[in-house]
């Protein structure tokens, strides 16, 4: 028996509730000077499980993946961003402090999700393509890595600006955090490149053009140029202040975030089946 829409909604609401707690706990931990990564990561695991169940139930009920509507895209990205942060932070302790930043952002996405219509729209025939999977999956991994890099960059910027013990406690090892930011950013560039290429192949198959300069494509190219540009600038200007690099990482994530969640819904042409 497929999962009902009402039950799916409850799963999402509980997940958003957990994200609210996951936002408060790290802030409280920061104020009290305690490391609260583990309980917060536990909450993230709960969010991943709940959203994973909601996506699976929805997929089975509707007979199609979460690819088209704003609700689908918010739901799947909330799941993937939480999962990517959780997985990276398990293996890379240097990025764990970023949980202070990621939680409020994920909460915003979650609250946004609860206000969006859950009604499913049938996928156009052009979406029945293996390249779509590569495009979507690499895009989600890209945004996840970019988020973790940006969150760590914010922590580094905050630590550099503040002189208190609390600030310095956020980044116990600035060198490792610095290295992690750029390693994550590099993986983000690789995933973004895969997303671009797979998207172009899919677009050619679906609409006969591998590149159309539509808003989504244009801003995706801008994001790629910002990713590559930041890495290139770091290699070019060896004495560039770390803070400038962190600002570039943040700016890239901001553009990527707006491209993912803004452009597709303000543009009439791309990625929607025409009549």
């Amino acid at each position, binding site marked *: 028996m497929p999962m009902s829409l009402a039950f799916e909604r409850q799963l999402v609401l509980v997940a958003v509730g957990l994200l609210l707690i996951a936002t408060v706990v790290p802030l409280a931990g920061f104020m009290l000077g305690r490391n609260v990564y583990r309980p917060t990561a536990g909450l993230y695991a709960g969010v991943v499980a709940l959203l994973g169940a909601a996506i699976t139930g929805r997929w089975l009920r509707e007979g199609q993946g979460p690819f088209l509507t704003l609700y689908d895209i918010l739901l799947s990205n909330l799941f993937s961003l939480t999962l990517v942060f959780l997985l990276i932070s398990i293996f890379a302790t240097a990025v764990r402090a970023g949980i202070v930043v990621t939680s409020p952002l994920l909460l915003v996405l979650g609250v946004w999700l609860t206000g969006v219509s859950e009604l499913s729209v049938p996928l*156009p*025939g052009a979406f029945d393509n293996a390249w779509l999977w590569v495009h979507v999956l690499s895009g989600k991994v890209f945004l996840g890595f970019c988020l973790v890099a940006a969150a760590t960059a914010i922590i580094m910027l905050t630590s550099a600006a503040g002189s208190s013990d609390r600030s310095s406690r956020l980044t116990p090892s600035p060198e490792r955090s610095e290295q992690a930011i750029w*390693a994550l950013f590099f993986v983000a560039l690789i995933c973004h*490149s895969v997303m671009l290429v797979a998207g*172009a192949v899919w677009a050619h198959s679906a609409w*006969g053009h591998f590149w159309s300069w539509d808003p989504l494509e244009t801003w995706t190219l*801008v994001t790629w140029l910002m990713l590559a540009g930041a890495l290139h600038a*770091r290699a070019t200007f060896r004495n560039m202040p770390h803070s400038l690099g962190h600002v570039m990482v943040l700016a890239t994530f901001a553009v990527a975030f707006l491209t993912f969640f803004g452009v597709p819904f303000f543009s009439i042409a791309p990625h929607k089946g025409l009549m």
Partner: protein
Amino acid sequence: MIMLLKKLASLRLTLVGMALLALLAVVGSRNAEIGAGITAVPLVILVVNLLAALLTNKSIRTQTGLLVFHVGLLLVFACIGLTVLLRYDGHVEVVQGGAFDAGMVETVEQGWWHHNRLEAIELYQGEVRVNYLPGLNRQDTASTFEYRASSGELRRITVGDTRAATIDGYRVAATFNKGFAVLLHWTGTDGTEILGAVHMPSFPEFDWKQLTAWTTPAGQQVELELKFDESVSDDRGAWSFGRTDMPYSVNVSLAGKSQRSLRRGESVELAGGVVRVVELRTWMAYQIDYTPLLPWMLVAALLAIVGLAMHFASRYLPASVTASSKEDGYAHVARV
């Protein structure tokens, strides 16, 4: 010469080119008067910069990953450049039971080096079926036609959302655009007899206005309106486009005044002849494009990605970081 190449290979110039490309991509794509063609300027700067860097920058040549990435990128640029010169992009509507007519193809883009061979295409349109779900949500498209393959054999194919035909190097793909056509028979007072199809506006996009102007072979301007006895499209239920056996009539108007409503087989006398409604058919719009280097562009892009992955592995994976930390004191931040 070497000095000039080194200046052209400047890493700062790369950053300027990238920033310019990002800026002009946004400006060009948002402003139709400027157009995305303006991005050719920074792209040329980047290609020259990349070529010069490959020739003079020892750091790129000695690091395999970086070298593979930059060579891949250069090949992508080369493929893009050649595609712009060789490409063809056009649209054509073909009526059910009719043949492809190269003269009816509306060219969207044609590269300077493109040798137009559309005349060689031989295609005969068959049935079209497009399924819709409630809310006019278009699902699978299936358009069947026969075409002459390069072997000379007549082949039958059904194209759709994820399948296109390649005929004489051109990719022929079904689009979302399709509609009904009225097959008319004209008998002129001079004895001329002509059979032809008048394409009605796209359906169901303009299901509320199946009206079009038609100039008779005698030169008279008339308006034809296709009216179905019952609604064909269904906003609230599932339905299929492609049937032509439903009851319909064709209103023939002169200067906005209805002349006559014709059923199948009926005719009306107009200036210089008589027109008879033969039957209802469908038409399908195809996109015809020629981008022969696309597979090579994909290979080049994948090569560039492999290069990036190799460079990442050499700079960031634990073993290489440890190794490079012995080489210089900067490895703890793993400079790219």
